[in-house]
């Protein structure tokens, strides 16, 4: 029994090793991506480029404009477009906000009259637009009360736990590693059986005394190994080069990775069992890779999604694994808090394996 599986595993590994392109793709490409993409995630809203049309040009108007700058949000400057062609600047993205101060600004204020200021916002990016308007409102209120953000006596002292410098890298690099492992394991396993079928070697395997479960095990063990090697590579480089903290237990992370790989490999096997050509398998693998990535809470929080869509994310092993990776690496979480995620991944894995085992054994006969 074990000898047969071992022989199959060896065969798969030899096939991978023989293909230098495959080796490069499996081990070099993920690492290169990790470096290239590490600093891309950053959804802080800052640098709102602001065109200023100051028709008053008084000390007061300049003071008002200055009150926009000290925050981390607005970058003010005068526009190269006249107010009449102001929209050109919005269209070619020179700025996202335009502030217009009328000629009677200081005059009105000195006579205790209300004065209107125009604030035009590019609503294309709704999130930045909402934040820009919120901040402009606050800045204006503070200007009115003669209070600048720095002179208010009550301050907010912020403390970030686990990721104190708010380094997005700490968050991105483990996310990229986990996403790539998901993609690669799904892609590899989804091809596994379909490829043998397409080249015609599946019949050869069938006439040998191999059982379905041995075949499946022989196909997934090599990819589980590859998954582990990739994770180790990614983690070591992440810790050495990006100085990502690792607070929790390494053994726990490796143990739980097994449950995660079990789930993604099962998904790959399932795809393999429902596709009849490599191309179809690849399309499905693509679909599920993108699904895992976008529905995991890696790029946008799951809490933002509509409720029905949130239910769908429960079908995503990566969702649980990201919580586990972040939990263990940054917070030092233990099984006592992570058990719901582990159970969910395990259920997913068992279910998907049973499904694909049923489908494969039927098709083999």
């Amino acid at each position, binding site marked *: 029994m074990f000898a047969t599986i071992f022989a199959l595993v060896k065969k798969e590994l030899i096939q991978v090793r023989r293909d230098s392109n495959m080796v490069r793709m499996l081990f070099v490409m993920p690492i290169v991506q990790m470096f290239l993409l590490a600093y891309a995630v950053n*959804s802080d809203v800052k640098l709102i480029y602001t065109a200023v049309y100051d028709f008053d040009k008084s000390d007061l108007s300049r003071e008002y404009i200055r009150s926009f700058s000290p925050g981390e949000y607005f970058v003010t400057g005068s526009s190269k477009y006249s107010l009449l062609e102001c929209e050109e600047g919005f269209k070619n993205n020179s700025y996202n906000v335009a502030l217009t101060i009328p000629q009677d600004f200081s005059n009105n204020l000195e006579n205790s009259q209300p004065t209107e200021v125009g604030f035009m916002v590019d609503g294309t990016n709704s*999130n930045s637009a909402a934040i820009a308007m919120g901040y402009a409102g606050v800045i204006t209120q503070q200007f009115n*009360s003669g209070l600048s953000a720095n002179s208010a006596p009550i301050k907010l002292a912020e403390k970030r*736990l*686990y990721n104190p410098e708010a380094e997005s890298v700490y968050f991105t690099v483990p996310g990229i590693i986990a996403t790539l492992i998901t993609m690669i394991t799904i892609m590899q396993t989804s091809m596994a059986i379909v490829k043998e079928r397409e080249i015609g070697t599946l019949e050869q395997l069938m006439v040998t005394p191999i059982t379905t479960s041995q075949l499946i095990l022989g196909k997934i063990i090599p990819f589980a190994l590859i998954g582990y090697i990739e994770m180790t590579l990614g983690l070591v480089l992440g810790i050495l080069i990006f100085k990502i903290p690792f607070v929790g237990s390494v053994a726990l992370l490796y143990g739980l990775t097994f449950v995660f790989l079990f789930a993604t490999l099962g998904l790959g096997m399932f795809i393999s069992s429902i596709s009849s050509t490599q191309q179809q398998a690849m*399309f499905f*693998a693509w679909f599920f890779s993108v699904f895992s990535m976008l529905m995991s809470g890696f790029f946008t929080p799951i809490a933002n999604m509509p409720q029905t869509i949130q239910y769908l994310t429960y079908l995503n092993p990566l969702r649980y694994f990201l919580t586990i990776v*972040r939990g263990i690496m940054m917070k030092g979480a233990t099984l006592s808090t992570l058990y719901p995620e582990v159970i969910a991944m395990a259920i997913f894995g068992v279910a998907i394996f049973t499904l694909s085992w049923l489908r494969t054994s039927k098709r083999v006969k």
Partner: protein
Amino acid sequence: MNKIKFIAIKEFRHIMRDSRSLIIVILMPIMMTFLYGYAINLDVKNIKLAIVDFDNSSESRDLTGRFYNSGYFVKSEKLPDMESPEKVLVAGKANAVLFIKPGLAEAIANFSDYELGITVDGSDANLAAAASSYAKMILAEFLSSKFSSGQTESGVILRSKILYNEDLQSSHFFVPGLIAVILMMISALLASVTIAREKETGTMEQLLTSPVTPRQIILGKVIPYVILASLDGLLILLFALIIFGVPFSGSSLLLMMFGLIYLTTALSFGILISTLVKTQQLAMMFSLLATVLPTVMLSGYIFEIKNMPVVMQWLTQLIPARYFIMIIRGIMLKGSGLAELWTESIFLIALTIGLLTLAVKRFQLKIG
């Protein structure tokens, strides 16, 4: 010309024969648009906040109310225990804890120094950033309401006006980007297999001994996929307009034109991959690994390019989707025309020509 046509027809037959793949190619992008059109947004809400109020005055209750009524924060499932309030963060039961020490009411009455504390779970960088900027905003509003009573009729009144996306619909921003991302991925994936498949099945030699030039082979192979991918593009665009109500204020002709150029870029990239590897499996893995993460992360689809470090910003210039996203957002949402989009157009066209030439060159090299 005729030869190109025959190769194109042959390739078309290949596509049509595998009807299951064809259905997948047409249905999957639509499903993806539907799913991610709803799922991907940055309307941060429901940040789980636990408030520990030691002041327990009317002022502190006012502040608490402002946090929970802001629409950004919701009460955490579990209240923190007083000994170690930050424990709720480990379990993920709350994303942030706000501490109101005793003395807030006096500080407001006497205009004296006081510090509020907020502890944010930084392990989810997106949520942490949102929590901290909304908390600052709510506090600033709270303070100005406390300290500027009675002055409101005279001061500056801010008249805000929103251009283009007046209702601030998140989907109007993300769905056009999603179209660009999906088209890039599917086109590269489709094209990457074509030449690799001929190599794997051994029909490449047959093609090469026939009197067609490499350029004719590549063109003949690209054309059917341009048609297929355009069909995909049109379908998801239609879907975006109907389901998500994304406005279309610019010229549809211009969008079609850029769409074709963009598809050619993506397909050329796929063909280039196809010439680099020997098997279908490698070709598909290569194209997925090279397009999925980079396109989503570096195109400006979710993360704004201007917020990235400068080196990363240079890197994004190599991502075709970056330009097409600017173009499609510009045309659909702002009604931009060539006058505003010419820089993006030039870059996109340059990338297309570069990739296509490279693909043809590589292919010729292989033959020679």
